[in-house]
């Protein structure tokens, strides 16, 4: 590993540990990592927006026009309309004209809602309803073939569970009496589903944590402190510097606290 790669890996390890330090409490190392991430991500997003969206979808389309003709002579001048709508967003900086920024927003939300309605209806209602209508495998209960009550039962559970869960989301009727019982069964079904989902996701998070620990161990510690590596002394130097900085930070903090206390007394 060359020294440059070693330095960046060490910086990555430092940022990882700085983020983990949040588990103790908010501290300057965490603040540094947080601000670094927010800053770089925002900068990265701005560049990405230009390269993936603004340039290919607007400027490239108008590229064959002339700026002094306001690109009206380009082969696709209608692209000026979304460009103009985008510019209207800048009127937010003016108190007098900021109302104009509502036009592109209204258009955006209106189009989005219009697109979302049939999509949501299709995915969340029609397709779910179609899946709920299942042919329960009575044959498995009563005769021919293998006796397999579980598969038959699962189809019943899906149908009854879906109906009970829907009953829970009924807002026009109080959850009392028999209907309340059905709704309660519905929330139990939902909670069982949530429990399974919780366990599944926690396992995924644990695997992310393992990946970070492996990074610290394999990509950093084993390289930084491996005597066969030409840069292994740097690892010890960095470890010393980190400990020294931590001690220094502690001493400065104590002195500042002491000074503040003295000021308050005086």
């Amino acid at each position: 590993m060359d020294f440059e790669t070693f330095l960046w890996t060490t910086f990555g390890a430092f940022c990882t540990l700085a983020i983990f330090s949040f588990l103790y409490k908010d501290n300057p190392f965490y603040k540094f990592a947080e601000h670094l991430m927010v800053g770089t991500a925002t900068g990265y997003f701005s560049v990405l927006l230009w390269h993936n969206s603004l340039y290919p979808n607007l400027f490239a389309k108008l590229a064959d026009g002339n700026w002094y003709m306001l690109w009206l002579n380009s082969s696709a001048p209608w692209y000026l309309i979304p460009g103009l709508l985008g510019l209207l967003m800048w009127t937010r900086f003016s108190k007098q004209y900021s109302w104009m920024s509502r036009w592109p927003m209204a258009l955006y939300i209106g189009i989005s809602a219009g697109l979302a309605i049939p999509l949501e209806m299709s995915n969340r209602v029609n397709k779910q309803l179609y899946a709920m209508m299942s042919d329960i495998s009575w044959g498995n209960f009563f005769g021919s073939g293998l006796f397999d009550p579980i598969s038959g039962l699962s189809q019943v559970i899906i149908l009854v569970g879906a109906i009970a869960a829907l009953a829970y989301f009924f807002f026009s009727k109080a959850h009392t009496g028999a209907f309340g019982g059905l709704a309660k069964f519905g929330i139990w079904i939902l909670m069982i589903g949530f429990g399974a989902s919780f366990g599944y996701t926690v396992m995924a998070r644990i695997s992310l944590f393992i990946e970070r620990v492996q990074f610290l161990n394999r990509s950093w510690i084993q390289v930084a402190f491996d005597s066969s590596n030409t840069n292994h002394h740097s690892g010890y130097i960095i470890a010393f510097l980190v400990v020294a900085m931590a001690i220094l930070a502690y001493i400065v903090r104590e002195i500042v606290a002491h000074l503040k206390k003295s000021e308050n007394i005086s």
Partner: protein
Amino acid sequence: MKPLLITVSLLSLMTAASFAQSDPPVEQPMATDSTMVASTPSITPPAPVSSLEAKDSPDDHGHSITLSWEPSADDGAGAATVTSYVIYHSTSPEGPFDSVGSAISGATTFTHSSAKESDAAGFLADYVDRYYRIDAVTADQTIRTPSSVVGPVQSSGQWYNDGRTPVAVAVAFFGLLSLFFLKRAKAGADLYVRPLGGIEAVDEAIGRATEMGKPILYVLGLGTASDISTIASFTILGRVAKRVAEYQTHLIVPCYDPIVMAVAQETVKAAYMDAGRPDDYKEDMVYFLTNSQFGYVGAVNGIMLRQLPATNVYMGKFYAESLLLAETGALAGSIQISGTDEVAQIPFFVVACDYTLIGEELYAASAYLGREPLLLGSLKAQDYAKAAVIICALLGALALNIAAASNATWGLTFKEFFKVTN
């Protein structure tokens, strides 16, 4: 559009039929391009595919041709077993023909949607005469028998997608229900909505923040302004902001998406005006943080621990950051109210927040809070639509099982009415 389609389809069929009936495939003089038959005289070539048809793909936006055929008689059997089919395309019946794809043995359809003939947009150009041929190929790829050429056929888009008729029916049904209940709500009918625990706690939480002199943190999640949950969240934000303005508490709304930020600023501003305190509204109450998921989480976590809000409200679309946010909020000792329609994230909110609006409760909350006729009418319509879904599901399951018991297919026909394709 329809007569044109029918004409094109008929022409395709007639051409296909005329070609299919004319020459026996092996005897056809098809060697017009270099990829053609490299026959070995000592081995019998496989039988060609039959009944080849090429049609404009139905119910699409164009740029696609669907081919169908009857497999070769030697598909999976015979002297020269066919292992695959190679599809050739040309814009002239004389060729040259170019390969546009292949299908494994047993296949009977192929969709030609993009290839070398694509237009500038990356699609197959519409309204261009196209001709197709399929070669039945044996395992060693050297012996192949071409089919007759079919065409011309043109691709075109359709204005109406037959496969989505159930969606149109459902949207129309729901729309009519909404209009009916909207009219009732406007007429002053008392439309009952059961209490929602999480929403009732909002006022209490704002009161607590006022007493403690601490801010309220409202997180809209990672959704864009086009997500339904984010749109529902704007309504709740309006209500929360109005109460905050009335109580003169401080509100913090860090945003992940710039458009969401702009809409949230408008919402909060309008709420402050409604509360009669437009001067108390400050632009920096609602601000953009970053468009990076975990950068956003890191920054919001920092806000929670540094500004110690009395109440954290998470409403909208959330992903992996849900537990990181809610856990930090719990550590900071804030009252937490959450709501999302992301099923995978609800468990995290349930374990880490004081109140959680599950799925559709988020949408209902905006109607419950606002009590506006439009939202109440829509909420009522949703309930009746759910009742219709329950009835249809029960009827469908019943029909399927009764029909299956008597070996009839009408149950399946009933179920197919609800099927959405494409």
